[in-house]
């Protein structure tokens, strides 16, 4: 993915050609009715519907509702993951206390929690934000913990000899040193959070892009459904792109540092 980024459009010419070929195949297969037209509309028709949905503002308002919940849940999950990860990495007692429970909760697929979450939090925003935060939490927690454990003790002692300890030590040394790990966790969490956002909206919601896709399918509005899925693909791609952009800036030192230490 990072290579894609570095090479820009030039390096992926063949990949883009394949994409265009597949889109053309979609168009022709629909025109020639290889699949029932009821469930396989033409690409051009879907594109037109997508254009209308964007122009009417309907799609953007659904998307806005979804992204707002996702941003809130993701931020909450990442924040808590970093805090608990730093605590577990810094204090043996806290690690011993929390490690067993995280090991039990972590492998359960997040969607399995949705029914429980509905029971306690209802079907409104609270439930969805909780679910997104909950699923974003674990990858960040585990990676932060590993990152904190991997901080070079010489770096910590250097700060100590300058009289830096406690919260300042965490802020000035532990967090920057563990940042490459934390970002790895955040990247995994981003993908998971998107999935959980869609699922929670499909299970119980009255708005949001996940709800939109499911409602379109139930209402036999197949073109709308496909337009929704395409929107989700674009959102996923865009979020990942934004994430990499931020990561490249924040971790510029790390990319230079590891390039230097690779040979």
């Amino acid at each position, binding site marked *: 993915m990072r290579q894609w980024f570095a090479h820009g459009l030039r390096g992926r010419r063949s990949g883009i050609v394949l994409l265009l070929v597949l889109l053309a195949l979609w168009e022709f297969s629909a025109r020639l009715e290889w699949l029932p037209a009821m469930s396989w509309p033409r690409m051009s028709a879907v594109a037109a519907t997508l254009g209308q949905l964007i122009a009417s503002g309907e799609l953007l308002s659904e998307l806005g509702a979804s992204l707002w919940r996702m941003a809130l849940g993701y931020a909450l999950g990442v924040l808590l993951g970093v805090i608990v990860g730093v605590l577990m990495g810094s204090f043996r007692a806290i690690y011993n206390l929390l490690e067993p429970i995280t090991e039990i909760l972590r492998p359960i697929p997040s969607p399995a929690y949705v029914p429980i979450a509905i029971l306690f939090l209802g079907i409104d925003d609270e439930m969805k934000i909780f679910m997104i935060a909950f699923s974003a939490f674990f990858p960040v927690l585990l990676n932060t913990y590993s990152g904190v454990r991997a901080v070079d003790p*010489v*770096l910590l002692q*250097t700060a100590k*000899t300058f*009289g830096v300890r406690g919260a300042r030590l965490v802020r000035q*040394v532990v967090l*920057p*040193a563990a940042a490459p790990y934390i970002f790895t966790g955040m990247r995994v969490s981003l993908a998971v959070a998107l999935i959980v956002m869609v699922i929670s909206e499909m299970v119980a919601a009255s708005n949001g892009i996940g709800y939109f896709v499911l409602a379109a399918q139930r209402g036999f509005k197949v073109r709308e459904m496909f337009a929704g899925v395409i929107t989700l693909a674009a959102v996923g791609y865009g979020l990942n792109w934004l994430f990499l952009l931020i990561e490249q800036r924040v971790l510029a*030192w790390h990319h230079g540092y590891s390039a230097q*230490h690779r040979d």
Partner: protein
Amino acid sequence: MSAAAYIELSGVKKTWNAQGRLTTALAGIDLVIEKGAFVSIVGPSGCGKSTLLQIMAGLVPSSDGLVRLHGQPVREPPRDMIYVFQQYTRSLFPWKNVQRNVAYGLESRGGLSAADIAERTAQTIAKVKLQGFENHYPWQLSGGMQQRVAIARALACAPDVLLMDEPFSSVDALTRVGLQQLLLDLWQSLGLTVIFVTHDVDEAIYLSTRVVALSRPPAHVGLDLTIALDHPRDAILTREHVHYLDYRHRLLAQLFADEGIASGAVHS
């Protein structure tokens, strides 16, 4: 505690435990260091020089015995002491450029305005001859340059006590002479107390008011020499002084005998 005692080590022992394997590095070190002294510690590789310095810095607990500074037991790094790591590469913050690394020590002390910090940082960077590299990151510098960044970061703070672990090991001979001069100037003008670990006997005598030679591990003080040569020292003439040669002879004789190296040395 005697009147002159500033740093006092009494019966300092250290046994390391590496995955159940016990290594006694220090067998029991007693030292009394007066304020303003420049003490070098020499000894064979692995004898416990770094261990001893880290215990003095409050970075590593001793297994037995006590270090006192101003009569106060040292249990964690004291504010007045700064330790310069032998592992200089790992001791620099890779996410900070040279300027920010050097300023880090000053910033962490507090009580200085941003303008003061910037000024002192620039001055110290100039002293270690790193002007023009302020915006470089440590991993973009050579080993010797990184070592100078680490030295500058400590010197900028002008602490009462400077503990330096082989700080000039990776710089070329000429730069080394320059840095030695810089350290001696600061030591004299600021009245610092310096404890300096080196395995270079010549460097130890040239810089110090006192040289302590540790024996092979488990280490004890093998030889404790007061260097009665006038300061300021001269990069060429001091090394030709008869007393200098005598100190050198005695220290080398001690270290070689300890290593079992045969030589023409006569014990004096």
